[in-house]
């Protein structure tokens, strides 16, 4: 895979402070164009906060974020979609009362030109043509993610797994160059994880997106990513190729867990992943 490709996103010495709590301290890493970079680490380590810094929800207390050689901190939050950064959320952030279709269409927001005036006129200002064009685009995503049957359902009534897919669809609709996935597999059973894995692979290969993913399922992380960084208490404690990182003693201790009598028998999925 794109092993020494260009750097799409560079995180440089980023720190983030909430009152007395240092959620991130001097984090640095780089995401290569076309790669799949996984961010792992214990709960509360600051992974989501890192994504939030990239997507604009939080502003780092210090440090730099460079996008294609450009400083992203200069861009407002809503501008970053335009730059080509899309994301999904750990705690589902869909528009609950909107239909799945409309949710995904919101992702197209920055690609659409019609405004409230032309929108109201619909037939005459070109809004209709534009909307239908986008609809075609969105339907492709819907087909790809196999959510045709819920197209018209309000997103709020869907089951968890479907909502996760709709979130992915919405992020894809942005046509991002970098897509940030916050625990895409959480709350899914094996079958669904396999589906999701299929989608993520396709995101890279068919849609040519660069992926930055947070995930706790080590099987997934191992199989899919080409680079991994481990955060603990806001600091990067290891980074590099997945096998090497997961073998790291420090990581085992902080994140994966030591071999423990009681837990041992329970932990086989994860254990096997390390082996």
């Amino acid at each position, binding site marked *: 895979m794109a092993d020494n490709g260009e750097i799409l996103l560079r995180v440089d010495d980023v720190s983030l402070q909430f009152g007395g709590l240092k959620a991130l301290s001097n984090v640095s890493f780089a995401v290569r164009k076309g790669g799949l970079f996984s961010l792992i680490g214990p*709960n509360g380590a600051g992974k989501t906060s890192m994504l939030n810094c990239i997507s604009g929800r939080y502003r780092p207390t210090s440090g730099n974020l460079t996008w294609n050689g450009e400083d992203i901190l200069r861009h407002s939050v809503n501008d970053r979609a335009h730059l080509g950064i899309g994301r999904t959320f750990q705690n589902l952030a869909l528009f609950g009362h909107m239909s799945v279709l409309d949710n995904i269409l919101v992702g197209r927001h920055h690609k659409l030109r019609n405004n409230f005036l032309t929108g109201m006129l619909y037939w005459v200002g070109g809004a209709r043509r534009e909307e239908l064009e986008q609809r075609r685009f969105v339907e492709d995503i819907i087909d790809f993610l196999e959510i045709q049957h819920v197209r018209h359902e309000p997103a709020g009534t*869907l089951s968890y797994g479907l909502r996760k897919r709709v979130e992915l669809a919405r992020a894809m609709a942005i046509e991002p160059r970098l897509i940030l996935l916050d625990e895409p597999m959480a709350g899914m059973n*094996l079958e669904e994880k396999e589906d999701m894995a299929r989608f993520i692979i396709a995101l890279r290969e068919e849609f040519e997106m660069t992926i930055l993913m947070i995930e*706790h399922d080590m099987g997934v992380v191992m199989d899919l990513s080409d680079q991994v960084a481990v955060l603990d208490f806001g600091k990067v404690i290891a980074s590099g190729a997945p096998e090497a990182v997961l073998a790291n003693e420090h990581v085992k201790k902080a994140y994966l867990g030591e071999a423990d009598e009681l837990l041992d028998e329970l932990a086989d999925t994860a254990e096997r992943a390390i082996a």
Partner: protein
Amino acid sequence: MTLTAEQVAESLSKEADDALLSINNVEVIFNGVILVLRGISLNARKGKITALLGANGAGKSTTLKAIAGLLRTDDGEITRGSVTYDGRDVTHTPPDRKVRDGVFLVMEGRGIIQDMTIRDNLRLGAFTRPGANVETEIEEIYRFFPRLKERKGLAGYLSGGEQQMLAIGRAMMAKPRLIMMDEPSMGLSPLLVKEVFGIIRRLNRELGISILLVEQNANMALKISDYGYIMENGKIVLDGSAEELLQNEDVKEFYLGGGEERRSFLNVKSFRRRKRWL
């Protein structure tokens, strides 16, 4: 295998004997039009861990809410069937009453009160036990979850895993006989997943709390459980002891990741064989 009528009746009454909670043929409809549970029956045995597995949208969370009596806030209602707890019909018992009787639900998404402190959240767990010595009990919970003690401030700023611990800790504060947990391992790091399952087992073994566990992590869930149900599309499609289920071909294929070797996520198939139980 065929059973005689007597045998069936016998096994049923035996089941009912050690069932702490059982639901019979429950049907749930949302908004008066959306049928979500289509007649589902299961038992949670006294002192045992019972797992309820199933795909997304199968209706697991709805089942737990139906048992706890929390459907009203979602505009849903039980239209058929009954819920029996400890030999009594509690189908329409108000939710707070059920908590007082010892049935506690840890909701999906943890349901912590974000704008309160961790301590206040824990205090609320003991709401149904007015006389309790809450402060010392909280210290005990902190021994279970030392991390919670370190974090100050509002619970809403906790990370996902920390929130899950808080939710379990809060359930323990209620000193229930039966805890129902809705996907407790969701979003937790591998270490914590182990810890949480360990805790669940400790709750069960050490404190004798019966547990009804909804999980996506079928592997782990079945390993700590005694009995399991598999649910799809609002119905129970399979049930059996945990060992039986762990050996079942379909369960292996769809829930456990089949075969001896773990399948790599890199070569997943996009077409599968049909599930036999459908």
